[in-house]
């Protein structure tokens, strides 16, 4: 018996502080904003009447309910199962087999800090978006013991190998820090994270443009000698607004990155990958490495400039808890070696998709452009016809997009890369496939191409516009790998 299982085998209650956090959690679900609005609406314009009696009643009820739900909530470890009993009105006994647990997330919210407690969220593959078990407040020791226990149990490989796997002691890999982010890293991450997003904020300003220009003393329609000067100031004003908005958004991004990612550490503890971060609320997400379904690597042009990328490691039911922004090439390789076994890694993605893809993507925006410029040209001003020239760069964009679309497959792994400016690369072992489809729409049928989709327990790898025989070959290869590669997929 390990110290962890010994600790957890006793029946535990949440911390004595838990009722407070239960109430806060319940109020948060109701929405503080709504409650405030109700209070204001009910309370405005008159002195409190006799109905004020409701307030102490509600408080007493809330307190009673939270204490009762604290008292009823117990958890313990029994024979590889986490047993949770809970419920205020109807009692519930939940049995969570440790090996079904997909991820254990520890979160220390701001209010948890003074009392040195944490919240534990336990997810299983079966729980659709709603956590199976939430322990509102407990000590970090217990929380981390649960994390380790959930990560250490290994799912059996198949009926024929159960015994041999069970007999082997699991090698204990010492914990190691894989990546950390210093404050200066965080600034870099924030600055390279889509700074142009700020332009979206400008869109509503366009509606106010006239008033704004009036206020600035600029008249757009004036046709006297001043018009040139006015036009200059107009450009200047727009420029100032654009720069200011981008500046504000970048500043907000830096602040937000510091709040969420401060002290970001990704570490490996045995077979568990853990990520911790947060300035106010400390969050710790962890998952058994073998449960990571695929690896997703995103890179914006600015990130490419500083050779950063964002890595996401989805596990079943949890798309984005394990996320590492600002990763270097070395860190990427470390994480890739952990999550995609070396024999399933795909090197250079040299395979390409069919030429017809470019026309498929081009035709709808092109049609919109043609119709738009013709209508505007005939009805408003002939100059709009020159918009048709945009068809040329549009075509080149989609053609480059098609040329850059790369994929590769080995006997045990599949990877794709797409995008011209911002790129995304996805890699997964073929045995992670849950469902494989070959789809042909009308356009693809005319060109004899098809789309292959390999769906994993969280996410999918999709390759469009392969020659039909190639697509079917890829599908057959994935299915073959699910049969021969018997390492666990979950």
């Amino acid at each position, binding site marked *: 018996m390990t110290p962890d299982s010994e600790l957890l085998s006793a029946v535990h209650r949440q911390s004595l502080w838990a009722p407070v956090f239960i109430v806060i959690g319940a109020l948060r679900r109701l929405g503080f904003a709504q409650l405030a609005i109700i209070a204001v609406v009910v309370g405005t314009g008159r002195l409190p009447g006799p109905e004020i009696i409701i307030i102490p009643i509600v408080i007493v009820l809330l307190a009673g309910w939270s204490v009762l739900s604290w008292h009823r909530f117990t958890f313990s470890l029994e024979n590889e199962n986490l047993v949770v009993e809970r419920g205020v009105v109807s009692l519930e006994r939940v049995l969570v087999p440790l090996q079904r647990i997909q991820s254990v997330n520890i979160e220390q919210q701001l209010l948890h800090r003074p009392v040195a407690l944490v919240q534990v969220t336990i997810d299983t*593959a079966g729980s659709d978006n709603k956590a199976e078990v939430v322990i509102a407040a407990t000590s970090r020791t217990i929380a981390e013991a649960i994390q380790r226990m959930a990560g250490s149990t*290994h799912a059996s*490989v*198949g*009926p024929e*190998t159960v015994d041999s*796997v069970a007999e*082997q002691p699991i090698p204990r890999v010492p914990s190691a820090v894989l990546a950390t982010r210093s404050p200066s890293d965080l600034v870099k991450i924030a600055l390279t994270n889509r700074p142009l997003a700020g332009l979206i904020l400008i869109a509503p300003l366009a509606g106010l443009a006239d008033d704004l220009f009036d206020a600035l003393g600029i008249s757009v329609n004036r046709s006297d000698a001043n018009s040139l000067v006015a036009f200059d100031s107009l450009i200047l004003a727009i420029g100032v607004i654009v720069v200011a908005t981008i500046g504000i958004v970048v500043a907000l991004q830096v602040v937000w990155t510091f709040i969420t990612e401060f002290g970001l550490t990704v570490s490996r503890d045995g*077979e568990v990958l853990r990520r911790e971060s947060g300035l106010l609320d400390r969050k710790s997400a962890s998952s058994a*490495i*073998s449960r990571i379904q695929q690896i997703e690597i995103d890179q914006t042009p600015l990130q490419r400039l500083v050779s950063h990328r964002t890595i996401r490691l989805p596990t*079943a039911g949890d798309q984005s808890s394990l996320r590492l922004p600002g990763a270097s090439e070395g860190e990427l390789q470390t994480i890739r070696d952990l999550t995609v*076994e070396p*024999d399933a890694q795909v090197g250079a993605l040299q395979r390409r998709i069919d030429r017809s893809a470019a026309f498929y993507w081009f035709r709808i925006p092109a049609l919109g452009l043609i119709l738009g410029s013709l209508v505007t040209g005939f009805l408003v001003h002939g100059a709009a016809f020159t918009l048709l020239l945009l068809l040329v760069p549009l075509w080149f964009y989609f053609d480059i997009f098609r040329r850059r679309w790369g994929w590769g497959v080995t*006997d*045990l792994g599949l990877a794709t890369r797409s995008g011209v400016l911002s790129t995304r690369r996805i890699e997964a072992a073929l045995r992670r*496939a*849950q*469902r*494989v*489809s*070959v*789809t*042909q*729409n*009308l356009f693809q*049928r005319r060109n004899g191409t098809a789309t292959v989709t390999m*769906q*994993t*327990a*969280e996410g*999918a790898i999709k390759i469009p516009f392969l020659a039909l025989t190639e697509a*079917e*070959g*890829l*599908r*057959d*290869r994935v*299915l*073959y790998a*699910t*049969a*021969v*590669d*018997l*390492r*666990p*997929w*979950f």
Partner: protein
Amino acid sequence: MTEPSSISNDPLDNTDLPQIGPQHFERVDPKHLTAGLVVLTATAATVLAFTIALAWIVSLNVDGSVAAKIGALLVLLILVGSAAQFLYLRASLSRLGYLVRERDISVRRGVLVRTVQTIPFARVQNVRAQRGPLERSLGLTSLVVTSAGGSLNIPGLRDSAAQALKELVIDRSGIDEADQ
């Protein structure tokens, strides 16, 4: 990461792999078309009745001949639409098929967008047989095979065939009945 010792990992030529050919797909029961037809007829009849009633009410209040013309046009449109829908249903029935191999189950479907979806038995989480009132009266069952990443739906199976297929999938995928 446990590493089973007996994984062969030789380079493969695609042509050596077992393939899913178009000829092997099993068609579903033709009564599935009847089920579709009943739904189609019921919908079309409701829409028709509603349109005629509306045209009649309008004709009482405003110019009768215009309302009658528009009403007739709408009725014609509904009939043509229903006929097209019927042809589509028939085409989709002839495309709908399933294929069971040693290690996986596939469904082929779709008229305009054609797709073949496959779930390996080793990834099946559960199998569910579904029968709505209409399906019950026709002796049909839909089988839903679910994995951790998407599911397959095979509608229009004869009850006995669905039961046999369900047992086959359970048997092949080694799911405990108790798990269901």
